[in-house]
């Protein structure tokens, strides 16, 4: 799923500093699963903003609601007659949310409440880790299911760099060196020779470097 972190409260306060009537929209999709943008978090943000404004003597009106997802126009459309009567809307969805909203309601000002970060999963309750960088050409089968493109700081494809020590990446000792895992796994499974294969220079066109991407399913698209 898409994993995000909530923006610091001060930053959100500045965004809506001069708005009187605000709508906070949660999203029941990925951001609910990673506990950052669901209805519960929407209520918490709304209440925090109310406390902040109330303290500074400039009370504001904040409503909170939640959409099934903010990445399908039909759900966005549900706010048709509501979104107008606010002078600022905060979307707690991933980066897709504020953009779909802005496209649907050009005259309204939309603000992101979360910083979208990566595709990943929950290694334990409350801790999510990046697993995929969306390079568009999946090669994890070469590395026994451990992707160096997403999980090596330098996306190296032929083994650990000189800085890997004690299984940790040179940039920080809480970041696992993925190549250390790949090499150990290959050794355990007796498939070390796979790493002798020379991987030609990767074709990055399918990645973000190839420009904004679209995915079209002929049989579905009208």
């Amino acid at each position, binding site marked *: 799923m898409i994993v995000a972190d909530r923006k610091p409260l001060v930053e959100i306060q500045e965004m809506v500093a001069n708005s009187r009537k605000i709508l906070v929209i949660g999203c029941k*999709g990925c951001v*609910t*699963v990673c*506990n950052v943008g*669901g*209805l*519960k978090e929407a*209520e918490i943000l709304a209440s925090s903003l109310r406390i902040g404004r109330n303290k500074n003597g400039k009370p504001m009106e904040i409503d909170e609601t939640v959409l099934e997802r903010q990445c399908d126009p039909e759900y966005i459309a549900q706010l048709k007659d509501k979104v107008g009567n606010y002078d600022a809307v905060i979307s707690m969805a991933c980066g897709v949310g504020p953009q779909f909203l802005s496209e649907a309601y050009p005259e309204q000002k939309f603000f992101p409440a979360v910083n979208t970060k990566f595709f990943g999963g929950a290694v334990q*309750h409350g801790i999510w880790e990046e697993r995929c960088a969306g390079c568009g050409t999946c090669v994890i089968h070469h590395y026994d299911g451990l992707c160096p493109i997403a999980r090596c700081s330098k996306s190296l494809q032929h083994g650990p760099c000189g800085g890997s020590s004690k299984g940790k990446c040179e940039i920080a000792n809480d970041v696992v060196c993925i190549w250390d895992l790949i090499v150990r796994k290959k050794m355990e499974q007796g498939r070390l020779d796979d790493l002798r294969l020379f991987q030609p220079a990767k074709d990055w066109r399918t990645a973000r470097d190839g420009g904004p991407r679209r995915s079209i399913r002929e049989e579905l698209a009208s």
Partner: protein
Amino acid sequence: MTLAEKRKLGSVLVVGAGVAGIQASLDMANSGFYVHLVDRSPSVGGIMAQLDKTFPTNDCAMCVISPFLVEVGRHLNIHVIPCSELERLDGEKGDFKATIVNHPRYIDTEKCTGCGQCRQVCPVVAINEFNCGLDLRKATYIPYPQAVPLAYAIDRNACIGCGMCEKVCLAGAVTYDDKTKITELEVGSVILAPGGEMYDPKEADSWSYSHPNVVTSLEFERILSASGPYRGHLMRPYDREEPEKIAWLQCVGSRDINRAKNSHCSSVCCMYAIKQTMIAKEHSAHELDTAIFYMDMRTYGKDFDKYYSRAKEERGVRFIRSRVHSIEPVENGNLRLRYVKESGESVEEIFNMVVLSVGFKPSSGVETIAKKLGLTLNEQHFFRTGDIRPVATSRDGVYVCGVSHGPKDIPQSVMEASAAASVATSDLSSARWSATRTPQLPPETDFSKMVPRIGVFVCNCGINIGGVADVPAIREYAKTLPHVVHVEDNLFTCSQDTQERMKQVIREKNINRVVVASCSPRTHEPLFQETIREAGLNKYLFEMANIRDQNTWVHKNNPDLATAKAKDLVRMAVAKAEYIEPLHQVKLDVKPAVLIVGGGVAGMEAALGAAEQGFQAYLVEKTDTLGGMAHQLRKTWQGEDIPAYLERLIKDVTNHSKIQIFLNTKPVHFTGTIGSFTTTLNDIHTGNPNGIIEHGAAILATGGREYRPEGYQYGNRPDVMTHLDLDQAMKDTPATVMNADTIVFIQCVGSRNSDRPYCSRVCCTHTLKNAIELKKIKPGMNIFVMYRDVRSYGFRESLYQEARALGVHFIRFDPENPPQMNIAENNILTITVTDHILQRPIVISPDLVVLAAAVLPNENKELFELFKVPVNAEGFLVEAHAKLRPVDFGSEGLFLAGLAHYPKSIDESIAQARAAVSRAVTIVSKDGIMVGGVVAAVNPDRCAVCCTCVRACPYGIPFIGNEGHAVIQQAECHGCGVCVSECPGKAITLQHFTDQQLIAKTRALFYQPAMNE
């Protein structure tokens, strides 16, 4: 009357309302029998109520027992008869006539609300037995604040009849003309649980117990207790100084034939002494030096040995193996102890306080009851009971449990209580639900759609509330609150007459939400919920404002603020009341059958018990024979013949119509919730199913086995054997054993070490029993027992005395240098060990070495995972609560018994098996179980299927159903609400504690409503 027409009464008399009496009463009342619970003192609770903390978990005793006290006080089918004693018992099993003497209490328990005004004005003081004489109580008294029944009593021989208490009693509860009454009760059977009393050290002056700083362990317990005289602040009675050094003397009044005439070991003093050292250290702000003087440290129960080593290694408690003869008071309240170290060196030490770990003696009631009922006593003047029928007395139909038939700790007492409950009602099963009362309730009118119409009832509670807060003002204020249609205030809302008027008012003004502003919901919510239910209202349409315990009682000195706070609390309660919805519990049907896994003695006794209670029992055994470990035993510690008992038991089980036996079978699939489980059984060898069992409860009795020692050449020499090998040899080839001249027993082989940090409990007794038997057959034989601690607890101490008398040599070794076995080249085996008295190594060349090997749990990882039951680090099954639910599992409907729980002797296994039956019967005896109420409910379309609730629930109850959203089953949810506030999508609500209700209550505190029109 011929046998057939013999009357079977559906009621039971329980004498003694300590923790054992209460447990037995609850089990029977919840299984369809009416219970008369008689106790000499004005309230229930017994010794446990006086304890501060309990070992080995250091839980606070009162927190553990008070829910049981409240339940026994309120239970529809338990009739608590305080201040009374059993006078006579006529008739026989199934049809007894009991004559009860009701001593006058001079206060009517129905009227008294426990407000305590009489205590404050009473001019007469007397020794406060509850605090063991540390402080005084008034002639009009209540044993302790949480007493049940919550009513005062007048101590007639202290009271001078001045009449002051009647003057101040607004409830008019004082009845000076109360007389001794005699009542007759017709009961089916009788359970005696009069408990025990602590030895009184005054009988011997060498302990100089008259000195204020020499206290008994129970007094020290009161000193430590937060509700005790010193409010839990550890101080010396003499001058309230905080002690720097405290000594505990073990075996005061136990194992002491010359001074105290008590030969038995009281089983619990070692453990409670260690607990008291640990709790004392926690209570003292400065470094506290604690020393325990003991002979044998007898920590034989589950997790007891770990507790002992934690005290020794981590908490720095000093354990000095020496028996102090006398205590010598010295200047400014200190005490000098002279003792001899093991090395022979004599030492003097000054202590600020000395605690005498006093042992048990039978309560004074035991002697009189035995005389009146014609029951036999043993030499120590406790009730005599056997091993094979551990809770039966010498009179048929009269059973016993708890300390009155032998000193024991709380878990063992509670186990025996449940066992007595199941045995006492086994042949009354035809009269089940015949004598019990079921509440007649009118149909519930449906108010859910209607606009809230709230009735507010403000209570004065005599002067407890009215004397501080302005109750009329509170009542008038309540009128102004939204949706309030009726307000009234009365003297005692909980009194019978007010309850009736409440019902009437509810019907007249068709009130659909009731708020009572009075005392604590913890004690009175069930009472009021029943009342409004009788008025046709769903019992959850009710909210309380605690304006007494948490307002007037604690803000006595500023009444106006107390009144303002009362108004706030009422406004908050009304605000929540507005959003309360009726909750309907769902009735799950119960399958009247019990599954028992494991065909050893425990399993068979459980199956027989369930069948005797009239329920279908399914006994599953993975081998091809019943009997388990018992096949290898010969005699119980009291000498009863095990093979004969085993043969009889197997015959009864196999022929019983209500027991279906599955040999070579193991469960492979298990689903369902309490009351209706489904288990699939498979044949071990062929693997194909041989039965699908529908049952309401399950008992796991998977048993244990003897540890095969690694060291000491075991297995490669015929003259080195374990206890079971010795028993085998004594049975089959006695000659091989008898022509040995010297035999050495080595204790704690495989137990009490780092891999198995527990004591296997039975090996000391087993060694003593065999040593005595060998000595009697061949007095000339030299027998050496090499031990770390001889743990012959309870009456087993007599075996230790007899063995020493017969000339068995006992040599103590430290774990650091255990006995060394070496084989000389001529294959002669010698044992070298350092004698603790001579302090020099001695060499013995025995003809036979017997290793007291540890007891291990049978390995059933797969089975335990199937039933989702926890095992501890050593592989033993983990019970729900060590003290008060020793045979239940955490998950409802599952129970345990036998060696799989912890090593125990055969009589303790039988008791635990019968206890498990009693617990299981409380489920299967009902035709339906009400589930639901305050439980979590999932709103599917808000659920993001994110598994947060699956991870957050401490009991692992929520799961993702195949409809694609989280599912929480009403029968299983415990109602804690953790998942509700973790759920990121706000998809789960905890009924009766919804967000809307709690936020409304919060908001109401700050939001002054506009005047009600």
